[in-house]
């Protein structure tokens, strides 16, 4: 190496150190939000709104980084050391497991924020082909022998567990809470499923690109997004007579936030999700807002139907998971040979 290159490298090195120091001095805080797949656009917009809000309040700049993927995969990444300040996942079960197995946050995390720590909710609806040729109106149409249903495997897809539980809940209600009848119902329903994709995105591809199946079970926000972005007029949304309240919760990951010194910031980031401006973004990205005033504004968009909840109708995720989705559970019985 000659003297000239050494000099240039030295100057570059000094510049790099200086710039990192100046960044640290201006105190730009960084937050990592580990989320699941369909929230990407929602959080992109919300992060900007929150950064403005936070700078106005405290004068500090914030950069929020996002990570998206299947909910179970994301939870495992956090357990294995992905340093998430906050998690915003598809179901409480995955966060429960992070708490129980890695001890990164207290067991009662879900009671720390309003509405079970769910600033937005959704529900499970049907997508059918244009003109609804099979005349699918409600859950009991899904077990007709001429109907083929597309839904992901609830064992590999967290989101699909809501689909399954909604069907189970419907069957219970229409059979005087007879569990044997409910089991028969979901068995018939899954016999109508020709392809069990491993995730929600796979199922959507199967239904739309491959034209397989008469009805796709989907989250309401995904159904809206889908009709808006992918296929105009090729599919229609059908809202069944009842469904389940899908509650995607959010939480601060205490141990990580403490280490980063971001507890206050992370808490504010999540609390601001309940504010009017954030709730409006939420509704525009097709999630149901929890704030009364915004919900009223968007009442036209989100039809009111009776909805079961995981805690009051299924005894919480731990119970539901064990009974239905664990090995040897009800879901496995459906596919037992003989």
């Amino acid at each position: 190496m000659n003297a000239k290159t050494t000099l240039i490298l030295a100057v570059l090195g000094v510049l790099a150190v200086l710039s990192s120091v100046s960044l640290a001095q201006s105190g730009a805080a960084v937050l990592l939000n580990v989320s699941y797949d369909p929230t990407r656009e929602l959080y992109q917009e919300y992060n900007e709104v929150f950064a403005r809000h936070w700078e106005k309040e405290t004068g500090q700049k914030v950069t929020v980084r996002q990570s998206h993927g299947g909910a179970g995969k994301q939870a495992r990444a956090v357990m294995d050391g992905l340093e998430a300040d906050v998690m915003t996942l598809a179901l409480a079960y995955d966060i429960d497991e992070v708490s129980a197995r890695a001890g990164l946050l207290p067991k009662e995390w879900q009671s720390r924020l309003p509405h079970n720590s769910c600033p937005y909710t959704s529900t499970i609806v049907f997508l059918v082909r244009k003109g609804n040729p099979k005349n699918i109106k409600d859950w009991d149409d899904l077990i007709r022998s001429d109907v083929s249903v597309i839904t992901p495997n609830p064992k590999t897809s967290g989101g699909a567990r809501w689909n399954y539980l909604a069907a189970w809940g419907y069957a219970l209600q229409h059979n005087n809470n007879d569990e044997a009848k409910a089991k028969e119902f979901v068995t018939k329903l899954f016999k109508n499923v020709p392809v069990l994709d491993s995730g929600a995105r796979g199922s959507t591809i199967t239904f739309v690109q491959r034209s397989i199946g008469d009805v796709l079970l989907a989250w309401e926000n995904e159904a809206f997004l889908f009709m808006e972005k992918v296929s105009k007029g090729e599919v229609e949304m059908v809202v069944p007579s009842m469904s389940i309240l899908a509650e995607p919760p959010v939480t601060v990951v205490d141990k990580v936030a403490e280490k980063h010194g971001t507890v206050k910031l992370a808490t504010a980031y999540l609390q601001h999700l309940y504010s009017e401006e954030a709730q409006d973004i939420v509704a525009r990205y097709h999630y149901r807002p929890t704030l009364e005033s915004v919900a009223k504004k968007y009442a036209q968009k989100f039809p009111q139907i009776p909805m079961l909840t995981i805690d009051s109708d299924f005894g919480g995720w731990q119970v539901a998971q064990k009974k239905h989705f664990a090995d040897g559970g009800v879901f496995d019985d459906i596919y037992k040979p003989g």
Partner: protein
Amino acid sequence: MKLVLKQPSILPGFGLTLGFSLTYLSLVVLIPLAGLFARTATLSWERFWHTVTDARLLAAYRLSFGASLAAACLNLFFGLIVAWVLVRYRFPGRRLLDALIDLPFALPTAVAGIALTALYTDTGWVGRWLALLNIKVAFAPLGVVVALTFIGLPFVVRTLQPVLEDLDPEIEEAAASLGAWRRHTLRRVVLPELWPVMLTGFALAFARALGEYGSIVFISGNMPMKTEIVPLLMVMKLEQYEYAEATAIAVAMLLISFTLLLIINLLQWWSGQRHAAVR
């Protein structure tokens, strides 16, 4: 008699390079594998046995090993022909064809899976015609074989090519001039020369197929007892946070594959011995 552990070599640097090789192998291969076994060891023996002999898993073993074997056989046969054509003949577009072989290496397998599924469903370009014949490829075991054949092809072709290039056509000419029939030449002259490397290509394609996940989850349809592959069941265990059970399945899979590859290696060694004896 003095036990000779190390053949004296006139090449310097043996100690250094061997040390480096061992360290590298440990870091890249042995330590991760040891982790796998360590995780599995947290299970009791009964739990382990119960996990790896579950009826659903047995069905998945059958599909994974069966489809991988079928795909490797297909690739061996057609790969040999492709390699032969690429090495022995000169024709326009040969370079392009040669480059095409590597595509399955380069393509993310999930993309391959989605593309193949689109082709082979009942409404796809190919599937439409097969449906008329009542042959179902996508969302059936046959689809798994198709996808595994796709990803395994370059392994066979690329291992065969250099050996074919070294195989002098003059040997075949000599055989012919000595009165051997064409079929005879192929069986007694060409194939014995290729046999060991064919086994290598076969083993590579087979091993690669066993571990494949990305493309299969799209084309197989993932129906329990019918079209589930072993790696999918591992992912399922992981989704339930049962790490030890997931690694138990991996260990079982690893042991079976290792045994099979060992048999292939023995075959190779044996054929090499026999070949040497004939010479």
